[in-house]
């Protein structure tokens, strides 16, 4: 066992990726432990999510109440629009990884300085720490909310192949959500009102990801704008695959490739901005 406190920095040979991941695993388990301290919060988070889903489900079911069974506006039926909006809310639960919150708070309080003296990359630490949050939200909030709505409203049952495609796409959407939240949290370097920034992020993402209105129901120019933004890959893309709203293999590959492209692009962007932010960071001593 190397007793040096900075094994990665001091050793001349590059560290294998597997060994590197091992350095970060404790952050994931620590995140899980602190999360389970407040178990009752999952119940209230579930109520919040169910209420959020119910608002848009009721709103759009009123629109599709009189539509023909073959499909109303945008090719949706009452059943498939309900499935879309409910699953959009479930995805949003998976995207609520608190990274924006915690990065902004640590930058604001200067706690980020403590992280910087450790031989680990802060954004990567945040990524591993948010994994248990996402997993716990999926199991303890997402599944019960989905179960509740299955009992209350008629939903469409997707094909098994589409479910698999959806799962792949949902993983990419979780990565996108992490990167978007990381970038949002980093605004803490330039403003103290990260609350306002986070609220703008939340509204803009919810709208342009297609969480409140499917992109198919937006007028042409607005749909073009939404498709050009990375947020489309967070809700609209996975749900297009889940509901079978695609033409053949090429279309599926295109959807997934665009998500991957945005993941890569935002990773580079946040790495560049992170370096730039560190060079101008000042933390007052305490």
């Amino acid at each position, binding site marked *: 066992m190397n007793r040096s406190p900075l094994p990665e920095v001091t050793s001349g040979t590059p560290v294998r990726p597997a060994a590197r991941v091992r350095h970060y695993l404790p952050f994931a388990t620590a995140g899980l432990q602190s999360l389970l301290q*407040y178990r*009752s*919060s999952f119940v*209230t*988070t579930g*109520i*919040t999510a169910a*209420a*959020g889903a*119910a*608002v848009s489900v*009721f*709103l*759009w*079911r*009123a*629109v599709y109440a*009189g539509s023909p069974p073959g499909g*109303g*506006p945008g090719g949706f039926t009452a059943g498939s629009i309900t499935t879309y909006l409910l699953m959009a809310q479930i995805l949003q639960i998976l995207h609520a990884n608190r990274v924006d919150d915690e990065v902004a708070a640590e930058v604001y309080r200067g706690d980020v300085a403590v992280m910087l003296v450790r031989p680990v990359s802060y954004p990567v630490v945040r990524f591993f720490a948010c994994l248990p949050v996402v997993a716990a939200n999926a199991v303890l909030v997402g599944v019960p909310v989905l179960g509740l709505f299955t009992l209350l409203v008629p939903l469409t049952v997707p094909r098994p192949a589409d479910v698999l495609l959806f799962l792949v796409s949902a993983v990419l959407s979780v990565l996108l959500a992490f990167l978007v939240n990381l970038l949002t949290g980093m605004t803490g370097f330039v*403003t*103290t*009102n990260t*609350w*306002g*920034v986070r*609220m*703008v992020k*939340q*509204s*803009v993402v*919810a*709208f342009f990801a297609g969480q*409140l*209105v499917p992109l198919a*129901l*937006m*007028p042409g120019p607005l749909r073009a704008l939404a498709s050009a933004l990375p947020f489309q890959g967070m809700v609209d893309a996975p749900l297009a695959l889940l509901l079978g709203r695609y033409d053949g293999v090429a279309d599926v590959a295109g959807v997934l490739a665009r998500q991957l492209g945005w993941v890569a692009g935002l990773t580079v962007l946040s790495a560049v901005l992170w370096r730039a932010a560190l060079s101008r960071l000042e933390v007052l001593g305490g």
Partner: protein
Amino acid sequence: MTRALWRHVRLAFFLGGVGLHRLSAYRVDFVLGAGAFLIRVGLQTAVVGLVFRQIPVLGGWSYHEVLFLLGFSLLPRGLDHLFTDQLWELGRKLVQRGEFHRYLIRPVNPLFSLLSERFFHPDALGELAVGTFLVIWSGSSIGLDLTPLQWAVAPLLVLCGALIHTSVKLLFASLSFWTVTSLPSMYAANQVSEFAAYPLDIYHSSLRALLTWVLPFAFTSYVPCVYLLTGAAGLVVWLPVVTAGALALALAVWRRGVNAYEMTGS
């Protein structure tokens, strides 16, 4: 009694002024906070617009009527937000970090002391501006012509609605005296209040009952708007009763909570 009240009013004005000063010190923050609401409500309006691209009438309400309702719902919400958002801090951390005692040792009412720490949340000005704009614009598009009585009652409707919002917030924030932090339940209550931005007619009857008699957000927007738009009294006569009841319940819970408060030893 009157002297104590007078002193609180003078203090409130003074501290409100301090809040305004803070506005000029953190200009970018103000623009961000108020702008955040502009964007949020702008996008919410866009959702209503997109709904009405598909259908002419939603639950018996026309496009401009729904926008009127959406705009009106922001007025009590904004007014409440302007003065009482310090309650979020109570639910979030004041009990958890053992910081609440400092409100108990000041020579003013503890609730006043807590709220006065930040008496003027300029973020709410964005909400109020959009709400006012939507109400005036959609009201004139409908050709709304209020009677003198409706004009006289309208400010009271906004005030009562704000007090209902405050009551619900105070009730859930006070739960933190027992549960240490009550932020998740405050979020849940806040999310439920979003139902009030749309006509209640589109919801299931059990949800309507919940919004009318349990968490009475219907009285902050739907009920007053039905009265202003149609002139039919309906449920609006219950508004003072509901407001008083909600406020009394919230204050009772708050008082019990303050008495139950034990400071953490750290």
